[in-house]
């Protein structure tokens, strides 16, 4: 457990705060100028470590083909002369052609960790140390926004937490069920901690009620996946179209830790992803007067170039990130890692640090 580079951390925090201020100004300006609600940032977490090499595929590279005798893919929707998409992602091609889809290439940490939980902490905080408030929570705090940051994924997200702005979770249970009875924070008397706890719960309850009341039915005919990501996308669209869109929405999809039998498993999760994102895009078109929306899909790390003995891949380093929506930097951010230049473990070397990616996103 090495997570205490204090000096480095504060330097990173400073850099992050500078980066965010542009977004903040833009948001405030936007709100003043048009009376439009601010931009909505949707974070989609692909849990388990998505194999970037088999998502945006350097199919012409002989080193890719050699390293993956059973897993190499050589045919799929073309992004440019050298890169193709996994065939399961074909539903994304129209969005790509409309220039509303972009890929960040070679995203990862300079000194990568292969531990899921450490890497998730790093991504959540946008720091190599993996400690501190979530990057989105910190961004809203600097903006002076009260949020809320709304997590739709079943286990919430540390990227949304640890700031002053309210982070709430919204799952079907909280949407339909009866909310727990409200306890007046004044009942805490002089018990400061209890009062804080009750106040937070009262705020969360109030915010949840407000969002619930503002929800409109989702646009029809979206053909979203039934389970997993589908209901989250539907709810995200409802929130975006509600007229009271929260500035940050989080979603999550699992199943990317493909140590064994990757071929069919990876195809299956990517197919669900593509179907959910295509539905999301269709939904955005059907929401009149909606705020600007940008979705960022990231994963905690990529996977090793060389496949393993179980027709799978082990934890690697650099991977790809996906951006979808208004004003995304189509076609690419960063460059594809050189398959000739690998690190000591045989992993791709990242060229685009997650902090830089966040910075870019907040500047859009």
């Amino acid at each position: 457990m090495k997570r205490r580079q204090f000096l480095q951390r504060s330097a990173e925090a400073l850099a992050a705060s500078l980066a965010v201020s542009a977004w903040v100004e833009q948001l405030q300006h936007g709100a003043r100028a048009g009376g439009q609600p601010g931009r909505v940032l949707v974070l989609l977490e692909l849990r388990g470590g998505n194999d970037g090499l088999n998502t945006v595929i350097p199919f012409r590279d002989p080193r890719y083909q050699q390293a993956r005798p059973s897993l190499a893919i050589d045919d799929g929707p073309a992004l440019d002369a050298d890169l193709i998409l996994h065939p399961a992602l074909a539903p994304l091609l129209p969005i790509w052609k409309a220039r509303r889809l972009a890929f960040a290439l070679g995203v990862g940490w300079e000194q990568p960790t292969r531990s899921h939980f450490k890497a998730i902490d790093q991504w959540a905080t946008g720091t190599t140390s993996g400690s501190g408030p979530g990057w989105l929570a910190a961004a809203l705090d600097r903006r002076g926004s009260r949020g809320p940051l709304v997590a739709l994924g079943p286990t919430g997200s540390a990227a949304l937490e640890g700031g002053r702005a309210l982070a709430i979770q919204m799952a079907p249970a909280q949407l339909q069920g009866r909310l727990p009875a409200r306890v007046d924070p004044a009942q805490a008397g002089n018990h400061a901690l209890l009062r804080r706890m009750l106040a937070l719960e009262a705020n969360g309850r109030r915010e949840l009620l407000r969002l619930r009341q503002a929800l409109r039915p989702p646009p029809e005919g979206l053909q979203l996946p039934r389970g997993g990501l589908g209901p989250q996308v539907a709810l995200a669209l409802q929130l975006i179209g509600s007229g009271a869109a929260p500035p940050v929405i989080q979603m999550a999809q699992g199943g990317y830790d493909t140590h064994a039998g990757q071929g069919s498993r990876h195809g299956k999760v990517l197919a669900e992803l593509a179907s959910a994102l295509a539905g999301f895009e269709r939904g955005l078109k059907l929401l009149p007067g909606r705020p600007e929306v940008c979705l960022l899909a990231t994963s905690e790390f990529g996977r090793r170039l060389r496949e393993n003995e179980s027709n799978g891949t082990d934890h690697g380093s650099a991977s790809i990130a996906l951006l979808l929506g208004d004003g995304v930097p189509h076609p690419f951010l960063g460059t594809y890692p050189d398959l000739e230049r690998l690190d000591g473990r045989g992993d791709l070397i990242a060229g685009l640090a997650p902090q830089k990616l966040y910075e870019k996103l907040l500047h859009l």
Partner: protein
Amino acid sequence: MSVCPPIGTPKRPVACRLREVQELQAHWLERLAFGQGRADDELVQLWLGLFPVSWRQLSDMRLLEAQIATIRAHLQGSYSDLLQAMIQDTALQISLNGLGNRRRNPNENFARELLELFTLGEGHFRERDVSETARALTGFRRGADGRLFVDPRQHDAGLKTILGRREPFEGASLAAWLCQQQATALNLVRRLWPRMVGVAPTGGQLEALAGRWRQQGLALPWLMQALRRSATAPANRGQRLEDPILMMARSLRLLGSRHPDALLIARQHLGRMGQEPFDPPSVKGWPVNGEWINLRWQQARVRGLQALLSDEEVWASRRTPGTLVVGVTAIPPLTFTLPLAVSREAMGLLFTDPAWQFA
């Protein structure tokens, strides 16, 4: 599922380790809820937050059991002895990269945490002390039996200057020397107070307590008794937001069901409450007291208890008291009044009341 390679084999599949740690987690919860040595186990749980090891860093879950046994064996001794045992603990050394700390290629991770968290505290040592401490801790290796020994070829036996004293320090002499420092007693008292009592007092109270503890030779029973006395004093009772693990153990105990579902549900939900057993988020351990305040975790606490209550098997095998008496919560409930005859509804009221979360 395929057969797991024997324990001790390096790089065992995560599924095997997961199964083993889940068994251990359920067993540990059972002990905290129902065990004969519950009082000691609660103290062990406390120290697991001060000498934190995540199961994710280990390939052999028996190392966690060994750490627990070592801590328990030292509860009646002095902090100096406990610290020395922790320096020689395999799990802790692995988690802080101690086995990579060699004479020619020192790794300072363990040394830094030792000075900053386990003894002196921030601001009471210099970088030079860290590197010299790392030298004193070089050479630990795992023997065939899993225990640590010092490999003379990898240990730096030379003189080291630590906090102004020049000696050929190694693990034991280092622990003893660090425990002689005034700052160590104060740092430990400062870290333990919020975990056992709540919001730390202002003024010189902590300093006074640390001073008296030093006069007691850093005896752990003396300190624990003193902290417990403070925790149960009227001004402090019910002021501390309890760790999820101990809150859950208390809930299991009140329900009294020994059905395996109960432990299963408890274990699953503890992760969502932010405190999966044996998985502290960092070397600083789990959040403490007010640090637990987070809407997601708060809601997870209530949902976990509701899940426990809504399981038919658990409810059918309950051994609840007839009445929820005054004093079942550390502060009076906010949403109902005690005493209350036990029913499923009454248990639901208790488990969703904020008062149940405090100790």
